[in-house]
C-alpha cells in the first residue's frame, strides 16, 4: 500500500477579506532553513498593495465606529481561533524557521497572549489617553483619542521566533484603537502570515480591516509610503531596508511614522496611541 499523497495549500494574498492571487501572476519560492521547497507565495505588485489600501480605507470607518467593547471581543476572538489552530502554526513555524517544537509552541503562545492583551486595551486606551479639560469658561471640553486611519506596517523580519509573533504584535497594536491596516508579511517566512489571515477571516474581523500581502517590502514600500490615502507607517520590521527613504516619502503627506525596532515590539500603550489622533470637543454650557 503506497503512502497517501498530501494536499499542499496554495498561499495567496489577503485583501478585502478575500484571498486573491497577485494580479501580476508572480510568485516566489518559500524555502525551509535547509533549502527545501515549502511553497510558492504570491509576489504582490504595486496594484495589489493599492487595492489593499482601497480595501483598508473603505473598511476603516465601520471598524472605528464599532463599539470599543465589540472591537475588544473581535481581537479576543482572534486569540480564540488561533488557539484552536495552534498545531498548524507550530508545524509551519518549525518548517519555516527550523526551530524546535517547544520554541515554536512558545511563539504561538506569545502570539495568542498578544491578542488577549490588546483585546483588553480596546475599551480602555481612550480612558487612559484622553481626559476632560478644566477650561476657564462655561464650556464642556473633552479630549479623546481616535484611530489615525489606514496604517501600513512591515512585520518584524528576524530569522527566528518572529514569523507569526512579529506580525501579531504589530497588527494587534494598530487594530486595538480601530485603525485598518495593510501589513507586509515576513518576506522569507510568510506562511504563518497567510495562515493567520485565515484565522482573521474566520474571527469576525470585518473584511478589509486587515490586509496581508507577501512579497518584497523594498519594492512595495515606496508605493505605500507615498500613497495619498495612507495615514501612518509602522516601520517595525524595516531595519534592514532603506527605511529613511520611506520616511522621506511619508513626509510629503505628513504621515505619522514609527521607526524600526529591534526584534518584536513589547506590549505598549505608547504604540497604540502612536496611531491615534487626539480630538478635542468644545461645547457651550448654558441653562437656557
Amino acid at each position, binding site marked *: 500500500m503506497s503512502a497517501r499523497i498530501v494536499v499542499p495549500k496554495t498561499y495567496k494574498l489577503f485583501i478585502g477579506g478575500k484571498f486573491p492571487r497577485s494580479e501580476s501572476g508572480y510568485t516566489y519560492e518559500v524555502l525551509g532553513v535547509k533549502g527545501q521547497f515549502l511553497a510558492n507565495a504570491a509576489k504582490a505588485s504595486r496594484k495589489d498593495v493599492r487595492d489593499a489600501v482601497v480595501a483598508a480605507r473603505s473598511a476603516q470607518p465601520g471598524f472605528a465606529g464599532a463599539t470599543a467593547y465589540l472591537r475588544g471581543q473581535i481581537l479576543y476572538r482572534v486569540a480564540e481561533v488561533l488557539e484552536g489552530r495552534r498545531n498548524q502554526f507550530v508545524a509551519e513555524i518549525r518548517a519555516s524557521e527550523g526551530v524546535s517544537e517547544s520554541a515554536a509552541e512558545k511563539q504561538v503562545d506569545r502570539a495568542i497572549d498578544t491578542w488577549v492583551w490588546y483585546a483588553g486595551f480596546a475599551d480602555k486606551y481612550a480612558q487612559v489617553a484622553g481626559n476632560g479639560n478644566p477650561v*476657564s469658561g462655561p464650556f464642556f471640553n473633552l479630549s479623546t483619542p481616535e484611530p489615525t486611519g489606514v496604517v501600513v506596517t512591515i512585520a518584524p523580519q528576524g530569522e527566528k521566533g518572529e514569523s507569526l509573533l512579529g506580525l501579531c504584535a504589530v497588527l494587534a497594536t494598530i487594530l486595538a484603537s480601530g485603525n485598518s491596516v495593510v501589513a507586509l508579511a515576513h518576506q522569507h517566512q510568510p506562511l504563518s502570515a497567510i495562515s493567520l489571515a485565515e484565522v482573521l477571516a474566520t474571527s469576525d474581523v470585518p473584511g478589509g480591516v486587515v490586509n496581508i500581502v507577501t512579497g518584497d517590502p523594498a519594492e512595495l514600500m515606496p508605493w505605500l509610503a507615498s500613497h495619498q490615502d495612507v495615514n501612518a507607517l509602522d516601520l517595525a520590521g524595516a531595519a534592514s531596508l532603506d527605511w529613511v527613504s520611506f520616511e522621506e516619502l511619508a513626509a510629503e503627506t505628513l504621515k505619522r511614522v514609527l521607526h524600526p525596532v529591534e526584534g518584536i515590539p513589547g506590549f505598549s500603550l505608547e504604540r497604540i496611541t*502612536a496611531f491615534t489622533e487626539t480630538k478635542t470637543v468644545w*461645547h457651550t454650557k448654558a441653562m437656557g
Partner: protein
Amino acid sequence: MTFLDYAKAPESTKILSLRDSYGLFIGGEFVDGHGSSFATISPATEETITHVAEATAHDVDLAVHSARSAYAKTWSKLSGSERGKYLFRIARLIQERSRELAVAETLDNGKPIRETRDVDIPLVAAWFFYYAGWADKLEYAGLGPNPQALGVAGQIIPWNFPLLMLAWKIAPALAAGNTVVLKPAETTPLTALLFAEICQQADLPAGVVNIVTGAGTTGAALVSHPDVNKIAFTGSTGVGRGIAKLLAGGTTNVTLELGGKGANIIFDDAAIDQAIEGIISGIFFNQGHVCCAGSRLLVQENIHDEVIQRLQSRLQTLRLGDPLDKNTDIGAVNSKAQLERIQAITDSGDAEGATRWSMACEIPTKGFWFPPTVFTDVQTSHRIARDEIFGPVLSVLTFRTPDEAVQKANNTPYGLSAGIWTEKASRMLAIADQLRAGVIWANTFNKFDPASPFGGYKESGYGREGGRHGLAGYLHSDSAKGGGR
C-alpha cells in the same frame, strides 16, 4: 454721525519704550548678531517700529550652544518646583506688563488692540501659569514612568499670534525641563524681544531661553542644527513637509502645527443669531490669519439665503481701520506678501465663477488692508474652497443632509478644526465623532485655553499643544518604545 459711527479712541503707544534696534537674545543677554539687520514695520502704517538683527547660521549655533550649556549646567539640575517658580514669575510679569505687550503686538502685527488686550496677552499669561504648575508634577501626567526632558528645543513660530505662539512653545518646553532656542516670525519679532526682557526681569538662568530673529534661512539653520533634540514648528504645511523630510530617519522629536481649511457647519435648527456671531469670529477674528479658521461655511440649504443676508448685514456693522483704536474690529493684514496672496486667491474665486461680496468700507491709504469678503456659489473644486487663504475670506457651500455635511467637511487634506451649530446635542456629538479634525467647536468657535489640547489630523500636522497632551512633545519616558513619531 449715525449710531454706528464712533469717536476715535486710540490706545496710546506712550506705554512703549522701544530701543532703536535689538540684537539677538543669547545666553541671557542681547548680543550683536553676525548678520545684517532688518526693519520691523507696522502693517497698518508701513512705518518702521525698530530694527532687529538677522541671525546667521553661526548665531544660531551660538544660541544652541548656549541652550545646551544652560541645560547641562543649570536647568536640568533644578528641581521641578524651582523651575515652576520661574514660570510663575514669568506669568506674573506678563500680567504686569500686559498693556504694554498688547500695544506692542498690535503695532507690530496689525491686529486690533481689542484682541491683543482681551485675548492674546491674557492667554499668554494663562499659558505660563498653567504649565508652571506642571513642572513638579510631570510623573502625574500619565506619560509613562520617569518622564524626562528631551534637552534643547528649537522652536519656530508664525506671525499671526506672535507672543501667544511663543507661550504655546516655551511654557511647556521649560516646564518639562528643556531649554529653548526660539525664532519668531520675520514680520513680528517685537514681542519676543520684549519677552526676552521679561526673562531678564524674572532672573531666568542665562541660556534657558534664547531668541534668534530672522527669516527662513535662520529657521532652516535651527531645524538642521545637529545638537537640537526637538523641533516644534507652527506655520505652513509646505514648510512642515520640508521639516519632516529633512529630519526623516533622525532621533529629533518633531511636532508640527500646520495649515487648515476648517469647516463651520450650520444646521437649520441652529440659534441663528449666535451662529452669525460664530461665523464672524470663526473667519474674521484676527483678519482670518488663523490656522484653525472656519474658512469654509457649510450651511444647510434651506437657510442659506437667510444666513447670508444676516451675515452680510452684521458684517456691515464691523469697523475696519486703525488697529490701535479700541473700537476697531478688523485690523491690517500682516504684510504686503500676505495681502498679495489673499488677492491672488480671491481673484481665482472670481475667475472660477464664485460670487464675491465685500464689506463696504473705507480702506486706509497706507498699510495693508483687505475688507471682510464672502464668496457664495462656491463649488468644492474651487481653489477658494480648497486652499488655505489665511485672510478675511469666507467660502460658502451648502448641504442637505448631515451625511453630506460630514462628507464635505472631511473633503480636504487638512484636519485642524471644525465648527458645528445645532441646538440638537445628540446630532452635534454624532457629527463631532465623524469629523476628521483635531479641534471641534460646537455652538462656539476659535476658543483656546492652556488646559485644552490643540492640533491637527492628516496634513495639518502632528502633536498637540495645550493641556496634559502638550507636555508629551517635550518629554520621553522609560516606557516609550519604537521611537519615531
